[in-house]
Structure formats: structure tokens, C-alpha cells
């Protein structure tokens, strides 16, 4: 971190505010936010189904949720390339598009919200829901007013971790993203490029910004965690 | 045999023990009795060496043990929640202390078998603690503590986590065990019935200080203050004095020293009758009478009677 200010604050600022750097950071930011939001919904639904529902193969599916954790990121890249690249069996050619980036990020962040919410759903006091029903609430209302508020801390925590992971993701996007500056170049790829072109200071500057963003998110997650704990009976 | 000398222990702001001194006689079974937060567990743990006092000394068998760690004090400790070694069998649990001391295998096996026989767990050697009931786990814990032939046996609310029936059975069993084995034993409990039932001597603690020490009878009949009196048995407040409800007598006519009261309610509980009275100052008072006495007095709500005590009132009212 100190190295990035080696050339003084001016160098830092010019490195960070170069149009390419800004573009890369912006892309990383908004794609990660989208992915975190999608995960918040899909992950919660998945956690719910895995805990409350029952069907053949549920145990296997439950185990597979952790697959993105276990797979090396570069392998994820190869996998997605096979799906949306030139040899795609379903005729999708999405390499070097933001869709490819979103797909990659969704894959690697899949487990975060699911695994964060699952134990909470598991521990939910069914009697709360039964009380709501006995008082006349429909399922949707019960879910919205009784269940969801209890899940929110876990959802936020998982979404936060999704975001932190997505914003720095490298291995899975480097193949499918196409790395077109200003269009599909993520911050992590930009940093890598700067290192390869022998500008480690410039790279460090952008890295610091990325680091700051991640840290802010982590601190926010921790605060949410404490807020959630205070509401525990 | 154990001497606690002016021990003080503080946890942050909270003073758990305040200048406590105590003597435990060899071979006795002493109960440390008191409400939650009275310091009794802390005192036991200080004797054990699991806590270090801020001030004062602990002398065991003539040696100053204050700075000696728990490992080398020669004490046996039994925890309220058993502290069983979950990944070891019953046999391995009981053998643990002997294995640590590198005793020969044959000796260990013999000792373990003997102890399991004493505690009634023979045949359970290969079970795991998870497969035992609470009472069985506690007996295993006792066997484990006794295996190392401790000079002192310390029990921290040993029956607190068990059902009432099991508690009563184990209580009687502990007393019999003590009579056979004669190890100096100190027991912590908040249950006065347990203390009275089991102990040779009782030490009553409150807010980090010893209120009174003595035999169960001494403490019941001659309590040193109102706290000890109300902790060890039922009390009724008669004017400025605390008395035992069964020491009260109701008469229809005024008597020397008796107070005037009005009958509020008469409850028939089979052989006994409880008369709920109201004293002149409005304070309620419940008196137990036999059916015969109640009939003789023809008690009815609204009657005026006189309540007095049959023996000297022991205590002026305490806080």
C-alpha cells in the first residue's frame, strides 16, 4: 500500500483517475453489485428449498452448492468458455461481453448467500410462523413479515461476501471477459495488465482503491453481524 | 486439614470472596451452602487451584498450597456438567489420571475395575459418555476423581443438572460412599435440604462472606442471623421477630406476648390446616395447625385470634 504513494500523491491520483482505470473500477463495481443482488434473491430461495423442501437428489445438490468453492477459478473460466465460447453447444457466443462476466461472477459467488442463510432457516422457530398463520396471515405475508426479517442479517452478510469476492475476481473472468479496455476489462485484470507492463506503482494505486472498497464492505458486514446478534432472543 | 485464610477474590468489579476464612476437618463432609453469586463455587475453585486468590492463603494438609497449580494439589474435582472426556470410553475416562502418572497397565486396569464396581458402573467400561444417563455420567466423574486417590474431594453442585429423583438417590449414595471411603469432601450446593441431608458441617455463604459455620442442627436451631435462618428453613415474621411457622400457636384468648390478628382465610390441606391471618399492621402471616386444633378453635374468616410463639423467638427481623 505504501508503495503506491511512492511517486507522491500526484502519481497516485493520475494512476487512479486514468480513464481506463476508472472504467475498469466502475465495471467491477457495478457487476459485483448486480451479482450480489441476484445472489441475495436466488441464494435465499435456494437455501429455503434446501432446508424446507424435499425431493430426490437433494443431498447431492446440497453438496454441489460448494462446488464453486472447490473449483480453481481458472477451471471455472474454461468451463464457461466451453459454454458460451466459439464451441458453445447451445450456440451462445458471449465471449467478451458483460454477460460473460456476470455469468462467471454468479458462478463463483453462488455458495455465499446460500450457506449464510441456510443455517438460519434451519434454526427458525416454526412456531412463529404457526402463530402468524393462526392470526390469519397468508403464506406470503408470513414470509414477508415474520420470516424474512429474521433472515435479513444473514442475507446481507452473504451478499456482502459475494460482493467482496466478485469485485476482486480474476481467474474465472480472464478467459471469457476478453479483456477489452473500457468495455470488458475488470479492475483485477487491469491491475494484472499494469504489472505485466512493468508499472507496479500504477497497479498498486488501483489495487489500493479496490482494497479500500473491499474493506469497507467487510466492516459493513461485521456491523450487520453485530446488529443481527443484538436482535437474537 | 484444609485451611482457607483471609481469601479475597475479585472478578473485575465484582467481589466474589471477601476476606473468607475457613477450616475443613479431615475426613469430614462439608457443604458450602448459599444462593447464586454467594461465592461458594469460587471458594471451591480457589481450594482446587482452578482460581488464584487475590489475597489470602490456602493450606492443605499443613502445606501452603496457594501457589501450587491444580495439577499438583492432590485434589479430585467433580463438575456440575460432568466434564466427561467425550471421545474416550468410560474406562479410559476413569483411567486418565492414572495414565498421566504412568502407572503400570495392570495396576490401572485393577483400579478402574474396582472403582467402577464401587460406583455401580461395572459392565459399562466400553461405553461412551454420550451413551450414559446424567446420573451415570456423574458417577463416572466421581470414579475418575477418586482414581487418583485424592487427599480432598471437591464437588461443584454435582447433582444440579439431574432430575429430582436421581438427585435424591445420588445424594444418599454419596453419603454412603463417604462413610465407606472417608475422603475429606467439600460439596457446593444451593439446596439447603441437600446440605442438611448429607453434610457433617455446613458453611453458609452470602455475597462473598461466611455467615455461619456449624452442624445442620446448630444452624437450624441457633441461626446467627436472619439470613441463615430464612435460608435454612421456613420463616414467618411476627411483629419484630422471625420465627419458624411450626413454632407458632394460635389461641382464641389473649396471651402474654401474643399479637392480635384477624383470620383472612382458612385452607384445609388434608390433615393440616393453613390459616392465613392478618396482623394489626396489615402484614400477612400464615400459620399451620393440625385439623384438631383448628376444629377446637372453630376458626372462621373474620375471627380475631392471638398468635404467639412457643419458644424464644430467635431473631430480630433482618433485612
Amino acid at each position, binding site marked *: 500500500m505504501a508503495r503506491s504513494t511512492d511517486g507522491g500523491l500526484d502519481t497516485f491520483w493520475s494512476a487512479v483517475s486514468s480513464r481506463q482505470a476508472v472504467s475498469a473500477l466502475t465495471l467491477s463495481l457495478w457487476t459485483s453489485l448486480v451479482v450480489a443482488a441476484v445472489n441475495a434473491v436466488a441464494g435465499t430461495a435456494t437455501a429455503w428449498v434446501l432446508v424446507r423442501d424435499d425431493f430426490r437428489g437433494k443431498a447431492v445438490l446440497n453438496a454441489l452448492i460448494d462446488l464453486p468453492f472447490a473449483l480453481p477459478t481458472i477451471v471455472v473460466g474454461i468451463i*464457461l468458455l466451453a459454454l458460451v465460447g466459439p464451441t458453445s453447444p447451445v450456440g451462445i457466443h458471449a465471449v467478451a461481453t458483460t454477460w460473460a462476466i456476470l455469468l462467471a461472477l454468479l458462478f463463483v459467488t453462488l455458495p455465499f448467500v446460500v450457506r449464510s442463510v441456510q443455517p438460519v432457516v434451519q434454526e427458525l422457530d416454526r412456531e412463529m410462523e404457526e402463530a402468524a398463520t393462526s392470526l390469519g396471515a397468508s403464506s406470503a405475508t408470513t414470509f414477508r413479515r415474520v420470516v424474512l426479517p429474521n433472515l435479513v442479517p444473514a442475507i446481507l452478510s452473504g451478499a456482502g461476501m459475494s460482493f467482496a469476492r466478485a469485485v476482486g475476481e480474476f481467474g474465472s473472468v480472464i478467459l471469457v471477459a476478453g479483456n477489452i479496455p473500457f468495455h470488458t476489462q475488470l479492475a483485477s485484470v487491469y491491475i494484472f495488465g499494469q504489472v505485466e507492463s512493468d508499472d507496479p506503482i500504477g497497479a498498486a494505486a488501483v489495487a489500493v482503491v479496490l482494497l479500500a472498497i473491499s474493506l469497507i464492505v467487510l466492516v459493513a458486514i461485521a456491523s450487520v453481524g453485530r446488529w443481527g446478534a443484538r436482535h437474537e432472543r | 486439614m484444609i485451611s482457607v485464610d483471609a481469601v479475597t477474590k475479585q472478578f473485575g468489579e465484582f467481589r466474589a470472596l471477601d476476606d473468607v476464612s475457613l477450616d475443613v476437618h479431615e475426613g469430614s463432609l462439608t457443604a458450602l451452602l448459599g444462593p447464586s453469586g454467594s461465592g461458594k463455587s469460587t471458594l471451591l475453585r480457589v481450594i482446587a487451584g482452578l482460581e488464584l486468590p487475590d489475597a489470602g492463603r490456602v493450606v492443605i494438609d499443613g502445606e501452603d498450597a496457594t501457589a501450587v497449580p491444580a495439577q499438583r494439589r492432590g485434589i479430585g474435582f467433580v463438575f456440575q456438567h460432568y466434564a466427561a472426556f467425550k471421545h474416550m470410553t468410560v474406562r479410559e475416562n476413569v483411567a*486418565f489420571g492414572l495414565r498421566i502418572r504412568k502407572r503400570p497397565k495392570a495396576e490401572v486396569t485393577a483400579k478402574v475395575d474396582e472403582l467402577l464396581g464401587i460406583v455401580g458402573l461395572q459392565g459399562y467400561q466400553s461405553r461412551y459418555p454420550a451413551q450414559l444417563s446424567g446420573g451415570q455420567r456423574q458417577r463416572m466423574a466421581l470414579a475418575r476423581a477418586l482414581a487418583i486417590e485424592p487427599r480432598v474431594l471437591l464437588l461443584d453442585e454435582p447433582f444440579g443438572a439431574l432430575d429430582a429423583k436421581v438427585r435424591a438417590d445420588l445424594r444418599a449414595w454419596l453419603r454412603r460412599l463417604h462413610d465407606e471411603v472417608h475422603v475429606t469432601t467439600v460439596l457446593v450446593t444451593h439446596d439447603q435440604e441437600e446440605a442438611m441431608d448429607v453434610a457433617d458441617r455446613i458453611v453458609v455463604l452470602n455475597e462473598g462472606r461466611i455467615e455461619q459455620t456449624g452442624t445442620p442442627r446448630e444452624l437450624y436451631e441457633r441461626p446467627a442471623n436472619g439470613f441463615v435462618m430464612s435460608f435454612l428453613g421456613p420463616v414467618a415474621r411476627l411483629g419484630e421477630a422471625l420465627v419458624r411457622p411450626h413454632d407458632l400457636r394460635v389461641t382464641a384468648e389473649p396471651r402474654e406476648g401474643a399479637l392480635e390478628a384477624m383470620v383472612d382465610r382458612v385452607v384445609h390441606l388434608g390433615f393440616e390446616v393453613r390459616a392465613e391471618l392478618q396482623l394489626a399492621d396489615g402484614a400477612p402471616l400464615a400459620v399451620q395447625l393440625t385439623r384438631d386444633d383448628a376444629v377446637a378453635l372453630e376458626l372462621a374468616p373474620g375471627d380475631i385470634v392471638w398468635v404467639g410463639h412457643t419458644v424464644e423467638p430467635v431473631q430480630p427481623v433482618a433485612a
Partner: protein
Amino acid sequence: MNVDRRVRLGVRTLVLAYLTVLLLVPVGLVFYRTFEHGITPVWQAITTPAAVHAFWLTLEIALIAVPLNTIFGVVTALALVRGRFRGKVAIDAVISLPFALSPVVIGLALLLVYGRGGWVSLPFQVIFSLPGMVLATIFVSLPFVVREVVPVLREIGDESEQAAATLGATPWQAFWRITLPAIRWGIAYGVVLTTARAIGEFGAVSVVSGRIAGETQTLTLLVEQRFQNFDLAGAYAASALLGVIAIATLLAMTLLKPRKDQT
């Protein structure tokens, strides 16, 4: 909540569809593509000298990083749960850092510190060589054992250790005979996660390794290089190997999780 049958089925279908598209199809596809032309080309692709070297290098790095992180993890977990000192929050934050940092940033940091003109000058080469890659791998896989052992330690409490002390055990004896067996499944689970992460690391070692084929190329780097050289089949083959390792990891996780959670 007794949900309407149709709603329940609807949600289930949506979730299953999402998971199938995102998870199952891509993974299945890669295995299909890999073995499309039979096993032989795959076998050949993963037994080239470069591949074999990459395999052993990956293993070597893991064999250094994992035991170190395990010991560190257990010691740190004990300190965090049983110790009494200030700054626990700070230590916890530092441990969680690898989760927040992009692998590229981690590699960059190592580069700046240990590289040419960096802060630290050691007598042997760190960057573009094995020590750098080991350092990077250690850092990214640091938190797992700690995070898995801490809740287990909290759950079991320290009464058993106190009992052991009263029975005459020294702190070391108590740790070895009582604490360690009690936390072994937490450790095992943490080790599995650590190993998977160490083997699968790409971004940080990419920056730090210099990617000299046959010398500083791990399996993951091999996959990328083959791709860049348009050797798609070779890339698939190496990926499949890594995929098999990943599935073995998943299996181990699934088997260990219930044991770890039961206390």
C-alpha cells in the same frame, strides 16, 4: 409455514432450473468436451513433461502451505478462544483479509515487498521462484483452519481441560489428549478447505511466478498457458484433472461436515 403446493413446486422448479443452468450444465459440458474423443488424448495431455512437472510443483507447494497453515490455524484458534489479551478483533480482521483481497492484489503486494527494489531483500530469490509462490499460497489459504476450529473450540468449552488439570495433566498433556481429539473434525474440515484452495490458487501465483514453463508453473497456470497457446484439448484435460480433485474435495467436505457439526 404450510405453503400452497403449487407455490412450493414453483419455487423448487425455479431454484432447480437456476442451479442446473448455472452449475450443472457448465460442469457437465466440460467433462463431456474433455472426453469427447476418448480417454487416450486426455491421458496423453496430462502426462506431458510440462504437465507432470506442474502436478508435482502444485503438490509440493500444497505440502508446504497446508501443514504450516494447519499449525498456525490451531494455535491462533486456541489463542482467540481461550486466550486473554486485547487486540483479538484486530487478529480476526487480519485473518479474514485473504477473503477480502483480490488474488491479483495479493500477488502484487508480494511483488512490491519481495521483488526487485522491494522492501525486503532476502539472499535467495523470492519472486519468480518457488518461495514467492509458496508465500502467495500460504496467504490465500490462511484463514480456513482457524475459522473452522474457532466455533468448535467455543462450543466445547474448557471444562474438560480443567478436569484434566485436576487429574494431574500438564497443559501440554491436556492439549494433546483432550483438546486435540475434541477438535479433530474441525481441523480435518479446515485442512480439506485449505488444500483445495492451495491447489486451486491462480491469480496470486500468476503475478508472482513469472510462469516459466517447466519451472514455476503450477497446474492452474498450465491450464491458462495451454489456452493461450490454443491447445484447447490440453487445457480441458488439465482442467478435468483439477475438476476431479475438486470433486474429491467436495466429497471429503460432505463426509466431514456432519462430524464437525456434532458435538
